[in-house]
């Protein structure tokens, strides 16, 4: 099956290796384009499907040219670990582990 991946975590997708990858350098969550920007979304979708035809071999990455129209410092603040947040992060981790421990195992 010819496949193309549309995503924003470049290093993760390239480590996994995929046939074709359109890389959209946006905050995780909107690889299809900025929210409510229909022209951008259509342009990104078109770039993704064109890769089905233009890529000649596996691990083809193309970077979409669009700029993130939102906050400019999103790369800096994403999952930032600051010394002053150490205790709050440990408490958040404890909450996550407690929640995860209560989840039923997946049925396969």
């Amino acid at each position, binding site marked *: 099956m010819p496949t193309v991946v549309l995503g924003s975590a470049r290093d993760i997708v390239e480590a996994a290796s995929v046939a074709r990858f359109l890389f959209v350098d946006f905050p995780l969550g909107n690889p299809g384009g900025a929210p409510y920007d229909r022209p951008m*979304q259509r342009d990104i979708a078109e770039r993704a499907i064109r890769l089905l035809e233009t890529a000649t071999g596996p691990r083809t990455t193309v970077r979409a040219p669009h700029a993130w129209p939102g906050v400019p410092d999103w790369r800096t603040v994403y999952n930032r670990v600051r010394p002053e947040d150490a205790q709050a992060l440990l408490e958040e981790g404890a909450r996550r582990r407690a929640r995860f421990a209560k989840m039923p195992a997946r049925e396969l």
Partner: protein
Amino acid sequence: MDRDPAIDDAPIAYIPRTRAFYRALGYEGDYRWAQNADAPFAPLRKPLSEARLALIVTSFPPGDWSDDNPPKKAVWSCGVADAPADLYNRNLAWDKQSTHTRDRESYLPLLALQALAEAGAIGGLTESFHGVPTVYSHRETTEFDAPEILRRVVAEKADAALLVAL
């Protein structure tokens, strides 16, 4: 608007960033992301303008879910014509500080693909789009979820598939 290289930074290296974040959360043992030296590659066997495309997304179906009551991790499908206005993905690790997923089209580009079909860029979409769960286990993805997705897109005579990873 094109990127301004003078302003933009390099792409985030998510693997080391996430590793450091989870260590700060107190997790013992780092997650091991999938590492493959190569990937299978299937060429498109017909012109793109004639190809039926299946859309796959990592989001979950809508529902009365919460952090303590998340949706079950399972492959799911939904008719393109019946696509809900919103899907559920609060339980996924997207950037909740800098953006949002209130616009479904920002991760499930059905309108964009339908417009491209109408313009003749692709032959059309398959009847359904599909959801694949993101799970920690590589084995569950490669042995259970991926084959199930493949079965469903082949059953709907897809010529190609687009996976959107939140």
